[in-house]
């Protein structure tokens, strides 16, 4: 019996996400879902910490996200990859949680209508990507939750603009604009906190 269980666990490690989902839905065997959990739990938890900035809340949110995934697994249609689907549930869950907790909170940076096309070109990715991790952590904490989600999707999950738009239910141009605003906002927060110190080491 134990040998069969061990064999099942070791073979499930080699299976793709889609195969694991199909087998879980067919057999209702928790080991297949555990395998999916092991693949994505760390990433989901890291995203929850990034969005909620609280270890305890992130732990509870990770649990809720996985229960949501479990309950909706049969609705996963493979229109996107499983990872994109999992991350979209995570981001939307965290945004909703923040929205419920703080009723009048700003989800995205305020409308920076004055930003011209020239400014759009002037904000390089290095503003975020080259920042020292401890400083980046502090800067990210001060960003609105929607901006954090957009930056994470673009620079960690390598999602396309269209995919980000699908997750947040926004148009591609709105997402492009929001990425730029988030970068400007992050740069502003950095300058407020560290003055003119260079971003990269």
């Amino acid at each position, binding site marked *: 019996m134990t040998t069969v269980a061990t064999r099942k666990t070791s073979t499930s490690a080699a299976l793709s996400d889609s195969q694991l989902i199909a087998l879980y839905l067919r057999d*209702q065997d928790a080991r297949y879902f555990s395998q999916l959990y092991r693949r994505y739990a760390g990433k989901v938890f890291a995203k929850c*910490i990034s969005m909620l900035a609280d270890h305890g809340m992130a*732990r509870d949110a990770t649990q809720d996200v996985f229960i949501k995934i479990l309950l909706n697994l049969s609705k996963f249609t493979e229109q996107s990859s499983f990872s994109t689907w999992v991350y979209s549930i995570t981001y939307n869950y965290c945004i909703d949680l923040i929205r419920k907790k703080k009723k009048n909170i700003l989800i995205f940076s305020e409308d920076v209508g004055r930003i011209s096309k020239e400014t759009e070109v002037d904000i390089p990715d290095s503003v975020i*990507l*080259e*920042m020292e*991790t401890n400083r980046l*952590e502090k800067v990210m904490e001060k960003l609105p939750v929607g901006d954090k989600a957009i930056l994470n999707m673009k620079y*960690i999950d390598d999602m396309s603009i269209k995919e980000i738009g699908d997750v947040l239910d926004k148009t591609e141009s709105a997402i492009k604009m929001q990425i730029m605003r988030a970068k400007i906002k992050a740069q502003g927060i950095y300058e407020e906190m560290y003055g003119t110190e260079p971003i990269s080491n």
Partner: protein
Amino acid sequence: MNNSLKKLQEEREAMLPPELEDRISQHVGTLSFFSNVVEVFVPNALQVVVQMVGGDELPCLKKANRRQARANMDWRKPPSPTLPDPA
């Protein structure tokens, strides 16, 4: 190019509380149990109610009962006395 956001994510991934897997496994187990209960118990309970009020066999159970009857068939007996003798 350096990617500090990915580095930060990797650092945080390592902070995943190990007890979370047990908590989620418990939920998965409970849900599986209840889905089995619903699948096995509810149609039969409904059947009892329907028959009590004078109704017919539920369509969803007809197929299952036929399958069950086939599984319980005694294969030592010839299928039918009307079949021609092979000899």
